[in-house]
């Protein structure tokens, strides 16, 4: 049984004149000690899904279906006070924009102590301060004693992010949710922060769900990957499988994006699908270089199909995709005819 099990989570935005299914029947799991990566283009619903795990939604959004189980305990539908005990204590959250998430008028030591004492009321102020110092050291901040009294604006981006990480780890949560934790940080700082995050999570025993668009991060820190498109999961695989034998055109596009000539052939053309106006058939078919009417792409919506051990893909043509990708990623070059892509493919537009 996995630590975290999310089944068929669906979150909808309801506005003036439309309903937008931001997260569609998304299922995934995270085992104890694992780092799971969720990737997808912007607008694919990854951040929304992550907040949904915590029972949180942005204005106008509602969770309309699914289960979220932590250690076999159902989370959706809990009362506010029950949620209060879970958020921060059993599940920690790290978001982008660290300085925006910190209270500008309180020293960071106090903020960390607050979180700790909120879930451990029997702890004294001094004990909480010690814990905060311990945490700052764990996340790689030099001179933690002095930094306890720093205000958020006195910290650099990297340090502020480390403070957030320290806060999220303060109650030794079972699970950490990190949404693009290093976006906006410099290259060297990013590597440092991620290393420290992973070390600290290991030290504390937390599993992690990491949401990002950066394949570098995913390749270096994640054990398993879920790829999202238009709010639904379209591929799921262990990391090495994902990078060697991706089985979905969206993954192929992502992996090929930096490859020069190849990128042209495998990219998704047009624009991200509008959640309010989903096409019939496969939701990606209008943009897909592998689209093929004969395979049913334009008429049927594919289910998740098993393509390997622990590897599923939501694509009728997964065999072709995997075949082409495997060879390309191994370093072979393939000429246009051999790759059954849009040139032959069909009337995608």
């Amino acid at each position: 049984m996995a630590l975290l099990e999310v089944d068929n989570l669906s979150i909808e935005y309801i506005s003036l004149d439309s309903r937008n299914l931001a997260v569609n029947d998304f299922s995934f799991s995270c085992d104890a000690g694992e780092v799971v990566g969720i990737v997808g283009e912007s607008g694919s619903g990854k951040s929304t899904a992550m907040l949904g795990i915590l029972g949180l939604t942005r204005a106008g959004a509602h969770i309309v279906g699914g289960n979220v189980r932590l250690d076999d305990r159902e989370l959706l539908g809990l009362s506010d006070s029950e949620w209060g005990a879970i958020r921060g204590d059993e599940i920690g959250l790290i978001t982008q924009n660290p300085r925006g998430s910190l209270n500008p008028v309180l020293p960071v030591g106090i903020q960390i102590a607050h979180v700790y004492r909120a879930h451990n009321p029997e702890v004294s102020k001094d004990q909480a301060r010690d814990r905060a110092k311990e945490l700052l050291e764990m996340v790689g901040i030099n001179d933690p004693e002095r930094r306890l009294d720093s205000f958020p604006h006195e910290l650099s981006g990297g340090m502020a992010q480390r403070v957030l990480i320290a806060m999220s780890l303060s109650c030794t949560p079972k699970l950490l949710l990190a949404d693009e934790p290093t976006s906006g940080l410099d290259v060297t700082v990013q590597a440092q922060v991620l290393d420290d995050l992973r070390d600290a999570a290991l030290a504390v025993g937390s599993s992690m769900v990491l949401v990002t668009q950066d394949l570098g991060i995913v390749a270096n820190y994640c054990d398993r990957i879920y790829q999202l498109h238009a709010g639904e999961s379209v591929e799921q695989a262990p990391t090495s499988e994902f990078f060697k034998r991706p089985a979905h055109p969206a993954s192929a596009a992502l992996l090929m994006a930096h490859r020069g000539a190849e990128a042209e052939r495998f990219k998704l053309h047009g624009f991200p699908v509008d959640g309010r106006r989903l096409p019939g058939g496969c939701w990606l078919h209008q943009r897909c270089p592998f689209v093929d009417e004969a395979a049913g792409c334009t008429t049927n919506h594919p289910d998740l199909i098993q393509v390997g051990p622990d590897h599923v893909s939501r694509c009728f043509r997964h065999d072709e995709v995997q075949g082409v990708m495997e060879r390309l990623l191994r370093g072979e070059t393939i000429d246009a005819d051999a790759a059954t892509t849009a040139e032959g493919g069909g009337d995608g537009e």
Partner: protein
Amino acid sequence: MSDGNGAADTPLLEVKSLVKQFSIPGTKAVVHACSDVTLTIRRGETLGIIGESGSGKTTLGRCVLRLLEPTSGQVLFEGRDLTSLSRKEMRKLRTDVQIVFQEPFDSLNPQMTVGRQIGEPLRIHTDLGKAARKTRVLELLELVGLPPSTYDALPRQLSPGALQRASIARAMSTDPKLIVLDEPTSALAPEAEAEVIRLLRRIQGETGIAYIFISHDLSLVGEICDSVAIMYLSQVIESGTRDQVFGNPRHPYSRALLAAVLLPDPSKRRDDAARAERLEGEIPSPIDLPAGCYLASRCHFVRDRCKTEPQQLLSAGEDGHDARCWRVTENDLKNEEIERLRAERRAQTADASA
């Protein structure tokens, strides 16, 4: 491609000892954005300027165009010192040197049609009438791969990738010899980024234009630049050809930077060796620059003299490859130190998991 009047040997652009400081109002303190920067770009070449935040790379880009006035130093374009030109003369030179900025949406006036904006430099610098300008703009749209209907579109109707292509079209309108690209793809999704890079390469192939490519993305710079300069805290700390700098980085900062790159390949995960190169601590303030080497507080190879002696660019072995570190010539010592650091790191990790 190059005009055959014997200028083929003169570098297209030379930056000599450029200094840019910003004074902080109300105090005597000064922010050092660029300190003693010297660079050379040849015709048709792509020079990459790499740096993280606070390195001064953006300021450098703007000083080259005199969008910011350099505090001192020279910027020689085809032999002429830009810093000494009058406003009128500088204006004429703007047909030869152009810039593309980072933000796709903000680079264009939200209320003006894209076509009109691409034609603005033509309106300013040429006598072409409206119809002639429109023809030229349509040609430019074709060059960058945008449909003619873009002419009448407003910026908000275009995707970020298309907006950057429009900005490139505008920069190309006066047939410049050099374009400064300030993080042109940082705000784009990977697919759009790849398209813009392809476009830039194609234009360079067709016109022989030179680029100054400012970026923090090492893989990108490695892909398209012929020569590279790495900046840290207002100084150029290493420069040379792409192969020299990326293949054999000599400065500790360059090494740390390259080691910090996360490759999208699980078989090439950041290993102990890479982690050994990481810099500790935080970047010093650009107002209160340290005496001696600016990296001293964070460098693993630091010695006493690093903290007091300002460092100069020294030859790192090969012709044209320079690094700002006195230890650059001491190859053996460096390798030994790296081994020592790796061993230390391995021991640390072993302790942690014990």
